[in-house]
């Protein structure tokens, strides 16, 4: 078994870009990492926007990309504490039977993951057309929270309402959930859509997301990980950092960079270009999150 520092070196080679989120500078964080390997830090893996069931020119390998990513995660030298899928597990369909079939197939494919602690939230493709009914049958609640090694994780649903509202009922639940936390608690939020107005004309927003951000503002250590926009993006609302993940079906253009949010074209010479998943290293002591981006396949 290799130690964490060796592991980090390996993943840095195989993984590519490293993004450090937190209050300290990159160099401080890097120094802190070397010394801090003793405390109870951990890492998780975020996968997003797998769109199982998609068929189209933006990914002619649609039947294989998710399976390859599962194999890559299973091949990581050191397995994560848990894995999270941040929505759009399946590609939408107007046929409820087909929706159920896709969600079940998705569940079967990701059941191949070695890690048993796997968490899910829905995306609008999974849940908006039936208010999450079939999703809930298969994956359980669309919003919930859990604790892991001193970090409070909050899963928010901004997709079961087709109008992208979190909604008053869930916001009341969030208020009660947060009320149990100290103001300096380490809080991580997972959600599908950006909670802030990233590009409303592309539907890259949550209609009442500002209400959730207002509730989170009094807490000093909050980081949000989300999906929906099929690319890496980093944004601050005050002291709260928001990090979107890549997709595992097709990449989308930079926010507002062109007229339509059409998928970036598939490149035969570089299959799965722009797709991938990420590891997130939680540095407990400093409430920092080191993000390491991975391609679909390594080596």
């Amino acid at each position, binding site marked *: 078994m290799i130690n964490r520092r060796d592991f980090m070196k390996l993943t840095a080679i195989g993984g590519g870009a490293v993004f450090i989120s937190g209050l300290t500078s990159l160099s401080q964080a890097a120094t802190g990492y070397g010394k801090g390997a003793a405390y109870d830090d951990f890492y998780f893996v975020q996968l997003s926007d797998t769109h199982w069931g998609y068929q189209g020119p933006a990914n002619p390998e649609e039947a294989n990309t998710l399976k390859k990513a599962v194999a890559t995660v299973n091949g990581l030298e050191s397995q994560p504490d848990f894995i999270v899928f941040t929505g759009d597990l399946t590609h*939408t369909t107007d046929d409820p039977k087909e929706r159920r079939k896709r969600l079940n197939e998705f569940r079967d494919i990701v059941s191949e993951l070695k890690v048993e602690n796997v968490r899910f939230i829905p995306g609008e493709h999974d849940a908006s057309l039936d208010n999450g009914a079939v999703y809930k049958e298969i994956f359980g609640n669309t919003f919930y929270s859990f604790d892991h090694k001193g970090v409070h994780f909050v899963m928010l649903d901004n997709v079961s309402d*087709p*109008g992208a509202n979190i909604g008053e009922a869930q916001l009341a639940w969030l208020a009660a959930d947060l009320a149990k936390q100290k103001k300096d608690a380490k809080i991580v939020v997972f959600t599908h859509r950006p909670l802030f107005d990233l590009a409303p004309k592309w539907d890259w927003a949550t209609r009442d997301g500002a209400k959730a951000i207002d509730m989170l503002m009094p807490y000093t250590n909050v980081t949000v990980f989300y999906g929906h926009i099929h690319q890496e993006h980093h944004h601050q609302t005050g002291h709260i950092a928001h990090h979107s993940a890549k997709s595992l079906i097709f990449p989308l253009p930079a926010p507002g960079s062109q007229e339509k949010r059409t998928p970036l074209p598939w490149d035969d010479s570089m299959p799965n270009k722009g797709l991938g998943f990420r590891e997130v290293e939680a540095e407990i002591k400093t409430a920092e999150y080191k993000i390491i981006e991975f391609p679909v396949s390594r080596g």
Partner: protein
Amino acid sequence: MNARHGTAWLISVLCLTVAAFITMNVAYGSSKNTAKERVIKIVAQRFSFTPNELKLKKGENVRLEFTSLDFVHGFNVPDLNLRADLPPGKITTLHLTPDKAGTFDFICDNFCGAGHEDMGGKIIVGN
């Protein structure tokens, strides 16, 4: 003009004004819009707006009348801070007087199915 004539004149002007307001209310369903409005009828259905390109003039008073055929679609023009839900079975009205020229994208912002992401259009405001 003597006092009596003056009073009669004032009353008739008042009556005309009130009548005008009542007419406006009946025609436009709103007491705020006293100026003449151009009506544009828009049909929303999975997964398009018809028409999906609206040509307006800066300062022009426009009334958008939406009929949705199959879903509570949304109409949202983020750059003009204008949005509405469009429930089927009724006409949804939005008033608009653009105060700037330019092209403003609109979208359906209620997820309505497999072609939802293509459901949109643009408002082109000329000087």
